[in-house]
């Protein structure tokens, strides 16, 4: 039950993009078309789930027992950078067409605040192993949800008459604001 709460919370109530403001760069950059948004979202979810596992292991098997808490930031970001490299090589081997499709998005995942944010927040909340994995998976899906919704809206926006200065990032942010308001409605859902 607690796990379900963590999952729904990460997906909707405390959505990584619309509540925690994580993953904004890809959110604005990759959300122009629904299929690329979906691919990016799923790739991020995949990396986030693995990151959840590895960051929990590092934090609880090495950093905490040996009082190395101050190395948390350095170790987490190095893990994430390496994981993204590995995922990139893995996808290249397993499915070259997929690799082609994702193109430069993959290395960009490293600086995606969402992944680092996931590792940090899970550690901050002192989640157990299972809770961390569910949290990672849920927040990845939350990110995917936000980015796909945004892509859907933007595909429509491209066809309409947006004032020149607001084209691109400006209108995207305003739309994000409206989406955030909508998602606000999910608060209290878990009470």
């Amino acid at each position: 039950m607690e796990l379900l709460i963590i999952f729904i919370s990460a997906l909707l109530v405390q959505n990584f993009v619309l509540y925690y403001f994580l993953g904004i760069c890809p959110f604005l950059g990759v959300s122009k078309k629904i299929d690329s948004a979906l691919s990016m979202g799923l790739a991020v979810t995949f990396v986030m789930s693995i990151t959840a596992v590895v960051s929990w292991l590092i934090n609880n098997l090495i950093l905490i027992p040996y009082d190395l808490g101050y190395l948390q930031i350095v170790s987490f970001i190095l893990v994430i950078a390496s994981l993204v490299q590995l995922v990139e090589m893995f996808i290249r081997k397993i499915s070259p067409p997929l690799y082609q499709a994702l193109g430069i998005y993959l290395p960009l995942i490293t600086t995606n605040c969402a992944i680092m944010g996931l590792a940090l927040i899970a550690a901050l909340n002192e989640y157990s192993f299972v809770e961390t994995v569910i949290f990672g998976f849920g927040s990845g899906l939350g990110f995917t949800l936000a980015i796909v919704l945004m892509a859907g809206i933007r595909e429509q926006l491209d066809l309409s008459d947006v004032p020149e200065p607001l084209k691109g990032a400006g209108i995207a942010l305003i739309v994000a604001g409206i989406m955030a308001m909508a998602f606000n409605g999910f608060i209290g859902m878990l009470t």
Partner: protein
Amino acid sequence: MSLSARMIIVLTTVGLISGGFLAGVAKLTKERIAMNMQAEIEGAIEEVVDDVETSSVLYEEDDLTVFKGLAKDGDLAGFAVQATGVGFQDKITLMFGLDETLSKITGLTIIDQKETPGLGAKITNWDAFLQFWEDRDATGLLILRKPPARRRDELLEKEINAITAATISSRKVLEIVNLSLDNVRALIKEGKITKEGADGN
């Protein structure tokens, strides 16, 4: 020197230098940080228990800690309970005080919350909510009073003022306190805490 060797040496050196540097910084700041966290707890205890001078932990578990507070002359000043529970937006951590007989609440303060800014977040500093936590009856269930009473003597001893436009967060605080009181009463029954303190003092 081959490229691979150079790569490995550079990375290792950079890693070692950073690691060493960070270890040094950590050492310098460790005490101060621990002090800050300690001060936060002690500050909260001082706010909710009258005349307390020193405090010690009586019982500790996840999300619930019971402190014993001693006055300047060493006499029992009261108890403080720190509890974490589910709020409206996220978890709320609070501290409330109990008198020496464990039957009256002597005050409440919020330590950590992430409620809606400007609305639910009022639980941190809304006087009509916080001040009216004094002298509450701790032997039974506390209930919410809304609309809120204007003067403390209008409230029944088991009533707490709700904050207008922040009713849900107020209710969440109330629920956490009620739950903690239940737990504390159970702990007393099991003998884990006694009115005299765990060390029979």
